[in-house]
C-alpha cells in the first residue's frame, strides 16, 4: 500500500484554491482602486468549474477497485481567466464598481483563505503525527 502523504490530492486542491483566492484578492483590490475611474468595469475570477471541466482536468482520481466506485472529484480547479461581471448597474461615467459587493467579496475571500490555511495546517499536523508515531 502506497502512502503518499506529502504529494497528495487534497493538498494540491487546497493549494490551487488558495492561489485562486489570492487572484480574487488582487482582482477585488483592482476593482476598489478603480472605484472612481470612468468606464472601468467590475471584474472577477470564476470559482465554479463545470463538471465537464473537472472531469477533463482529472489526471489521477482516487484508486478504484470496482467499476461502480467513484474516482472522486478533489482536484485543482482548472485555469483561471478573469471576466467582466454582468448585471451590475453602471453610473453616469460608465463605471459599475459596487462598493458593497467588493467589500463582501473581500471578507469572503479573506475568510475562505484563513479556512483553507487552517486545513493545510491540519494536514501537516496529521503528517507530523504519523512521523511521531501518534505522539503530538
Amino acid at each position, binding site marked *: 500500500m502506497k502512502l503518499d502523504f506529502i504529494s497528495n490530492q487534497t493538498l494540491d486542491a487546497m493549494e490551487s484554491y488558495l492561489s485562486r483566492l489570492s487572484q480574487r484578492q488582487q482582482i477585488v*483590490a483592482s476593482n*476598489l482602486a478603480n472605484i472612481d475611474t470612468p468606464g472601468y468595469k467590475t471584474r472577477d475570477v470564476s470559482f465554479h468549474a463545470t463538471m465537464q471541466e473537472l472531469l477533463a482536468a482529472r489526471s489521477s482520481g482516487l484508486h478504484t477497485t470496482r467499476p461502480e466506485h467513484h474516482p472522486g472529484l478533489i482536484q485543482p480547479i482548472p485555469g483561471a481567466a*478573469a471576466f467582466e461581471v454582468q448585471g451590475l448597474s453602471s453610473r453616469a461615467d460608465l463605471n459599475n464598481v459596487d462598493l458593497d459587493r467588493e467589500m463582501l467579496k473581500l471578507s469572503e475571500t479573506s475568510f475562505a*483563505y484563513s479556512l483553507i490555511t487552517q486545513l493545510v495546517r491540519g494536514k501537516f499536523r496529521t503528517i507530523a503525527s504519523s512521523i511521531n508515531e501518534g505522539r503530538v
Partner: protein
Amino acid sequence: MSLMTAIEVGASGLTAQRRRLEVLVGNLVNAGTTQPAGAEPYRRKDVVFTAASPEATFGAALEDAVQGVEISGLVTDRGDPVKKHEPNHPHADKDGYVYYPNVNPMEEMVNVLSATRSYEANLQAVNMAKEMQQKTLEILR
C-alpha cells in the same frame, strides 16, 4: 508573491484618492478668493483617474484584469464664475461686479466624502491582503 500585487494595487488607489482629496481641498479653500478686475478668477479643478497596470509581474491569465489606478490629468472646470454686485469690494470691476470662483462648497464636501470612503475601501483591501499573507505564514507554525 501575488498578494504583493494586491497590496501594490491597493496602494495605487490610496495615492490616487489622497491626491484627489488634495485637489478638492484646494477648491474648498479657494471658494471665496477673488482676483482684481480683469484677471481670471480661480476655477474649480478635478482629477481624472485611469486604470493602469501595476509594475509587478503576475500570471498571464490575469495580465489585463488586475489594474491599479493613476491620475492621468488635472482638469479645470470651465463653468462660469459667480458674478456678485459688490461695488465697494477692492476687486470690483467698473460696473461694481466681483467674480467669485465657480466652486460650490456643498458639492466639494460631497466629493471629499466620496474620496474619503474610496480611500477607506482601498485601505481595507490592503489590510485584508496583509492578513492573508499572515495566514500563509501561520501554516509554517
